[in-house]
């Protein structure tokens, strides 16, 4: 009981530190992820933890899959409905989940700041493809592991 109260008191304070926020929201991957989410999204890119974007961004993304960042990523209506429900229920609500005009995780100020040391040529490596490909450097991205000590930048 005591420890629970202590944790409750500590969490808001620790939320300022990346680690706690990661477990409360954002980077954390929901316990249940629909198979279709992993299968359909990771056919082309990292299946991003849904907490990385707010509900408004996911709504726009799922409503325009035929014009998906330069490619047509259409899904059938049933899959769109199922994944939209899940994304809305698990969308990010913490400070980093910001709705940028183009609904890109990589457009958020925190993303730019966190990656400012990555050199321009690194983003262009064939093995990486670009900032959208989290797993090129964060091997644990699909599990929500973006910790700095597990970063491996390809050469």
């Amino acid at each position, binding site marked *: 009981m005591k420890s629970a109260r202590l944790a409750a008191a500590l969490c808001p304070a620790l939320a300022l530190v990346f680690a706690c926020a990661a477990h409360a929201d954002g980077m954390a991957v929901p316990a249940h992820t629909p198979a279709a989410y992993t299968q359909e999204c990771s056919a082309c890119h990292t299946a991003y933890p849904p907490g990385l974007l707010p509900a408004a961004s996911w709504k726009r993304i799922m409503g325009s899959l*035929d014009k998906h960042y330069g*490619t*047509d990523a*259409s899904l*059938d209506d049933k899959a769109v409905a199922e994944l939209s429900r899940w994304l809305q229920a698990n969308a990010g609500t913490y400070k980093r989940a910001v709705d940028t005009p183009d609904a890109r995780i990589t457009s958020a100020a925190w993303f730019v700041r966190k990656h400012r040391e990555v050199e321009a040529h690194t983003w262009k490596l064939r093995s990486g*493809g670009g900032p959208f490909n989290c797993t090129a450097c964060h091997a644990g991205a699909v599990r929500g592991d973006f910790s700095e000590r597990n970063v491996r930048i390809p050469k």
Partner: protein
Amino acid sequence: MRKLLSCVTFALCAAGFASATAAAGPADLQAQYAAEAAIQPSATRGETFFTQKHGKEWSCSTCHGAPPVRDGEHVMTRKRIAPLAPAFNPEALNDRARADKWFKRNCGDVLGRACSPAEKADVLAYLTGQRK
């Protein structure tokens, strides 16, 4: 008697279900598209369609390669794409829903419109014609 009837009904339903959802092989897919288009598929037309651009930036072969008998790479995402020619990839073109999904997406990217059943049948003829 009733039991026997329900058994027979069940067996018939199961058989019907199995045939409806049986993994359609590449040849079945080609036949389905050809029947919808009422044409004789042509591998030559398919090759031209597959390798040429259609008014937009990419052709099918930009990502799949030509002939698509080796791994391809998506021009934007750099994602590895398994060979499309069924002789080089047993997973390729054996499911109608998956084929329809990717035709819809990729025809949107390459042509800016849906592909016709005739175009799909021709492409299938080109792909199934690739031999080891």
